[in-house]
């Protein structure tokens, strides 16, 4: 067992556990976005970052940082809220997130984060990129305008469904999700149409076709429920 401090409180953890897992076990909420229980953590969105008080306030992503003996972790501070809010602001300005007529309006993890972090406006200029939709699949749609490139669909598809349909294309700010190396989703020969990617998606980027504004309610917890019944492979 390892002993560490979370917000000044001493807690016990098992070796190999992440800061996020230990915080969750102890009833401490750390906001997350690219993390989804049941998928391998990637630490790419940085929304879950915490401060290590006895490492000069170093910032680490809680979802991929293993606990260590004697760590003093701060999960909540004005600085963390400001930094997390700035990250969420940048996600909003990077693409065209127009909540008012999104299928996921009111059921969106990005929108929820804005509320949680007190974001009532974006302090930087918006980019308004010209991005496409892919409506070639019979059952599901993809709207790149609403995608935050968290990769939850990519991991659900490879780690849980084993289809490896979803991947990434492009670099940096041009990174986007793509099916079968960039062909339209509806032409994909690997997609099993299982819909796990849609359920794993935190925003309205992936949706069930025919959904009206605010009608797309998702169940990302199915990823955990499916994987709980299997031996862990990662």
């Amino acid at each position, binding site marked *: 067992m390892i002993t560490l401090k979370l917000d000044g409180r001493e807690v016990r953890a098992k070796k190999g556990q992440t800061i996020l897992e230990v915080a969750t076990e102890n009833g401490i909420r750390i906001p997350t976005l690219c993390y989804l229980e049941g998928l391998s953590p990637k630490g790419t969105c940085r929304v879950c970052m915490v401060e290590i008080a006895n490492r000069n306030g170093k910032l680490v992503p809680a979802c991929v940082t293993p606990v260590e003996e004697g760590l003093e972790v701060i999960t909540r501070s004005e600085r963390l809220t400001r930094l997390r809010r700035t990250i969420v602001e940048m996600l909003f300005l990077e693409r065209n997130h127009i909540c008012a007529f999104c299928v996921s309006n009111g059921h969106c993890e990005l929108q929820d984060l804005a509320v949680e972090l007190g*974001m*009532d406006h974006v302090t930087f200029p918006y980019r308004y990129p*010209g991005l496409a939709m892919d409506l070639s699949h019979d059952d599901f749609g993809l709207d790149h305008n609403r995608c935050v490139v968290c990769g939850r669909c990519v991991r659900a598809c490879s780690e849980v469904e084993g289809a490896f349909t979803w991947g990434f294309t492009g670099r940096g700010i041009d990174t986007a999700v793509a099916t079968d190396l960039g062909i339209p989703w509806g032409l994909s020969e690997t997609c099993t149409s299982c819909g796990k990617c849609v359920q794993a998606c935190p925003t309205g980027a992936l949706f069930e076709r025919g959904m009206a504004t605010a009608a797309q309610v998702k169940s990302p917890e199915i990823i955990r429920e499916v994987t709980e019944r299997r031996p862990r492979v990662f």
Partner: protein
Amino acid sequence: MSSKVRVATMWFSGCSGCHMSFLDLDERLIEFAELAELVYSPIVDPKEIPDGIDVALIEGTVNTTEQLAQLREIREKARIVVAFGDCAITGNVPSMRNPRPRDEVLRTVYGGGEIPGLEDGAVPALLPRALPLQAYVRVDHYIPGCPPDADRIWKFIVTLIKEGKPRLEGEEIRFG
């Protein structure tokens, strides 16, 4: 009378939903009239933006040259400028034209030949992009929502006037 807060409202490119939501204050409008005087608004008579505005609630995206001039004028004349609703804060629906060039958007809608909006004329020219207020002027406060509901607007107004600082919390700042 002079102790009343002088409030103005404006409506740029938007659907007027925020103003409709303001009217949804219903019987609270009577209380509003006791606290404040509506000195300039699409729903009152004056045609010129008056001096000495305390609070300006501005709905909509800045989309035309005329709106930009009005925004700059009201910024000079108002102590507190409030972005009222999602369009004024994020660009929202009117900003959907932004990924495409302005002339292409106008040509797609109006076709070839002489068309309105390219240059200032009978109608003001369309700006290259539809942008939120803070792209041009300092904005003091924000009321998110599409539209913000009447309870949210009322809490904003009451806390601003009575406590000197608006206090919207939690779900009261949700976009959409």
